[in-house]
């Protein structure tokens, strides 16, 4: 198809509407916003991981000529705002009042004329701390002698947050008791950080005349933020307007509310002027939502000939000092229980225990789809561990156990209903693209000859679960996870679509216009997509968990169909024909059997706004609204193959090739899907090989800047080799599934599997991420180390 045709028919690789402003430096990011009289905030942070707060002396800072106010925990306590609710129904300190519980925690907030003065004043605040022993190692958090971190809760005597389980314990135990082969493996999915290139920030403007609070902020969920602010600040929602401007990447980092936001809002109320707060990189890495930190013990049961019978998993989840994890209320470990992955098995069971440690809150972020990164990594590592035990090729083992197309919709043993899939076809395509047999031959030759770097081939076949979700089962803080959409057609046939989700680079302004174009046959360029302003858009829960296409995309298709139905009635009046006699072709209704007699959407739109007499009950104009409550999640899947070379002398890993075949059902815009996959694969390289936020025994954060927390550059990423299969989601109006997080979910296991495969001659069965040269070198020496701790 030519691009022109694609534009008119909706779907296809249409170039992005968003680009025009970004390539000219005309985006509008949070720190670009300037309001008259605007002041600047800065946060004083704790140098200690765990300490009692003895005193906070702000007098010298307040005396600074450019300082307007200094807010402390005591100030906030007077407003009952020293603590705020988290997305996991815990509370989090906004500014510390009693203790500090992680390094970098917020202690005071300075408001000054400019950024430089605010930073100067931080150094004038005198805080006295009384150090307490920190809890750094999650595996020691429940020890009898571990310090109690959350003594703000009366009667609490330990660091235990929750126990949660899924699956059938008894049946799983029976399967394991009778299994021919059982293999166990411990693995850590280390604490990493989504590190969007733009950090978090806010501009808060409390208008004391109108009583209306406007906040521009880096939020992936503007409507949820508005409701939370209403609950926290006691302002009614119609007096709060949350606006998400252009967001420089979110990756789950910008779902929750951070103390800096609350401080800026209070600051604006106190100072009577707009207050901007934008954190710097080290603040972002140290104190905003981390990802992962799952200590997992996996067991897999199988027959000797390689039929998988069951999985049993125990997880210790390090949640930091406040349980701020973002996930639907009923799922404290997110959707981890999709850990049986892509395989048919008799039984499975998981137990997850969450604990407090002296670290920043978070957990669910960085394209995890609510813990599916951890689940996919677990099962895909366990398959390889089993393959090693059985001395089977890991591709063969997977092909033997993958769910078959005729099994869908498939009821998993842990409670999911997978919507659709054709897994063997997708894996075979990836193997063909890779030249799998040739690669194995090359590997055998290399091992034989002992020349060149070690070569490893790693496979990951994953099933995602995205599009949360059915409101009966899924809510966040009581807010059901359905999304609204509003579509209005102007008299001349141009359209404005208002949606509740919030792009952070995923291209919604283009793809959502394409959905309308697809449904109504009007050019996508004629559809303006409005999002991010709670005064202007319908309620909904925002963008994360790859939920935009499954939920809001569905809402857009539904609302467009409502408009199309109304247009049919108007066309009937225009053409003096019964609606049953009208037929649709892209862009127009016409009288059946008489293609020459019809009305285009543009003509219908004008007539709907004009003098045409409309049938009884039709109000005129051409618009519609809807709320889409998804019947199920969508379950995209993919087959990834990584070829890695490892230098045994230095431990350096090079990703030589990476083949990724994704199936996300219908692709609204293939170019954008591929861009999403590229970015997610780079995440995989980062997590597998480079990224970790480790802590020392005093609780010092050892990954607090890009000097230590390493992101992949263009040099570490190969040229990705992408493929696709298309298996429609049967319940989605467009047959489309989410895809944004698939590559981040699926790729780390492929890379780790490749590296472990390369190290097979050394008898290595597992190595924890990140597989830095130091770690790989030590693994080769037979002395791996805890990548998450720097404790002697």
């Amino acid at each position: 198809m030519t691009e022109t045709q694609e534009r008119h028919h909706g779907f296809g690789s249409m170039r992005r509407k968003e680009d025009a402003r970004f390539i000219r430096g005309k985006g509008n990011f949070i720190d670009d916003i300037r309001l008259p009289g605007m002041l600047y905030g800065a946060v004083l942070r704790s140098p200690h991981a765990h300490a009692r707060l003895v005193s906070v002396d702000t007098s010298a800072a307040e005396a600074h000529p450019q300082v307007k106010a200094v807010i402390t925990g005591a100030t906030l306590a007077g407003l009952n705002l020293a603590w705020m609710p988290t997305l996991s129904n815990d509370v989090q300190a906004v500014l510390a009042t009693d203790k500090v519980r992680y390094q970098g925690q917020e202690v005071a907030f300075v408001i000054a004329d400019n950024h430089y003065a605010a930073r100067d004043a931080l150094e004038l605040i005198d805080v006295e701390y009384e150090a307490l022993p920190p809890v750094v190692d999650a595996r020691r958090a429940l020890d009898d002698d571990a310090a109690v971190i959350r003594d703000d809760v009366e009667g609490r005597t330990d660091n235990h947050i929750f126990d949660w389980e899924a699956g059938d314990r008894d049946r799983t135990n029976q399967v394991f008791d009778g299994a021919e082969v059982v293999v166990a493996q411990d693995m850590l999915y280390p604490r990493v950080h989504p590190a969007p290139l733009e950090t978090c920030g806010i501009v808060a403007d409390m208008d004391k005349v109108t009583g209306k609070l406007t906040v521009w902020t880096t939020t992936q969920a503007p409507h949820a933020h508005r409701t939370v602010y209403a609950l926290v600040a006691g302002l009614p929602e119609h007096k709060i307007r949350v606006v998400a401007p252009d967001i420089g990447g979110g990756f789950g980092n910008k779902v929750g509310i951070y103390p800096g936001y609350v401080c800026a809002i209070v600051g604006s109320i106190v100072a009577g002027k707009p207050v901007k707060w934008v954190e710097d990189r080290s603040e972002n890495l140290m104190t905003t939502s981390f990802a992962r930190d799952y200590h997992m013990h996996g067991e897999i049961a199988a027959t000797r000939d390689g039929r998988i019978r069951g999985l049993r998993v125990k997880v210790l989840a390090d949640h930091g000092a406040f349980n701020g994890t973002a996930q639907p209320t009923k799922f404290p470990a997110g959707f981890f229980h999709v850990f049986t992955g892509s395989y048919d098995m008799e039984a499975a069971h998981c137990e997850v225990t969450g604990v407090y440690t002296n670290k920043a809150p978070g957990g669910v972020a960085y394209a995890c789809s609510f813990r599916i990164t951890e689940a996919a990594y677990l099962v895909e590592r366990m398959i390889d561990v089993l393959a090693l035990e059985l001395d089977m090729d890991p591709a063969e083992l997977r092909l033997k156990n993958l769910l078959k197309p005729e099994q869908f919709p498939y009821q998993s043993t842990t409670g999911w209903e997978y919507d659709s899939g054709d897994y063997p076809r997708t894996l075979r395509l990836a193997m063909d693209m890779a030249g799998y047999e040739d690669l194995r031959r090359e590997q055998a030759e290399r091992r034989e000859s002992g020349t060149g770097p070690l070569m490893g081939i790693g496979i990951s076949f994953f099933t995602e679960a995205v599009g949360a979700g059915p409101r009966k089962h899924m809510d966040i803080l009581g807010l059901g996870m359905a999304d609204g959409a509003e579509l209005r057609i102007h008299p001349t046939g141009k359209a404005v679509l208002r949606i509740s989700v919030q792009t952070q680079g995923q291209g919604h302004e283009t793809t959502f216009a394409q959905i309308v174009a697809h449904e109504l046959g009007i050019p996508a360029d004629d559809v303006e997509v409005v999002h991010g302003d709670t005064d202007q858009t319908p309620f909904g829960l925002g963008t994360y968990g790859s939920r935009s296409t499954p939920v809001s995309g569905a809402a857009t298709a539904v609302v467009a169909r409502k408009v199309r139905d109304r247009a049919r009635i108007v066309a009937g009046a225009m053409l003096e024909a019964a609606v049953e006699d009208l037929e649709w072709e892209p862009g127009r209704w016409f009288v059946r059997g008489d293609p020459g007699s019809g009305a285009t959407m543009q003509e219908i739109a004008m007539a709907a706004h004009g003098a045409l007499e409309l049938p009884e009950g039709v109000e005129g104009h051409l618009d519609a609204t809807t709320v889409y409550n998804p019947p199920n999640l969508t379950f995209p899947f993919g087959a990834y193959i990584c070829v890695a070379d490892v230098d045994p002398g230095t431990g350096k890993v090079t990703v030589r090739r990476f083949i990724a075949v994704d199936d996300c059902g219908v692709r609204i815009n293939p170019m954008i899907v591929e861009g999403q996959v590229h970015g997610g694969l780079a995440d995989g390289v980062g997590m597998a090989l480079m990224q970790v936020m480790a802590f020392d025994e005093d609780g010092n954060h050892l990954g607090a800047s890009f000097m230590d927390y390493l992101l992949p550059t263009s040099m570490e990423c190969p040229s990705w080799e992408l493929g696709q299969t298309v298996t429609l989601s049967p319940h989605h109006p467009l047959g489309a599934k989410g895809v944004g997080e698939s590559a981040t979910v699926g790729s780390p296991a492929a890379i780790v599997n490749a590296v472990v495969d390369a190290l097979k001659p050394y008898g290595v069965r597992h190595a924890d991420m990140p597989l830095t040269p130091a770690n790989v070198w030590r693994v080769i020496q037979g002395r791996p180390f805890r990548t998450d701790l720097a404790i002697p």
Partner: protein
Amino acid sequence: MPRVKVEVDGVTYEDDVEPRLLLIHYLRDRLGKVGTPVGCDTTNCGACTVLLDGMSVKSCSVLAVQADGHQIVTVEGLGIDGELHPMQRAFHQEHALQCGFCTPGMIIASIDLLRENADPSEEEIREGLEGNLCRCTGYQNIVRAVRTAADEMRRAPEREAAS
């Protein structure tokens, strides 16, 4: 306070600045050139890349006073008469941006890369852009965009010279 005289995107500015003022903040806060953002605090990310006398620099690591008497070009000053620079067009054509936050610095760094090497290989492009982090694209389409722009600029060099 020291006085600086700087040409930015073709316009000359004279200002009194604190000696400690970073060039990026001078551009953003004083001149309103907010098209160039800040992504880190350790000079790793390159989001703040601008051309200083034609060569790319990370403007978070240059003091405004050091720019005195020099010429700066930001992403906002590219192209002429409303027409886009070939590099800007190529980024759009090849889908080399998503959130758009690294894009201004990436485009500037890419232009400098082609100044040094008008016909770079993929490997040379990757090496040339190592100082610019991107979280969205996985770099592949950026590499492709630089190749596309290089081809176009070699076909029509006089247009590039004018911009």
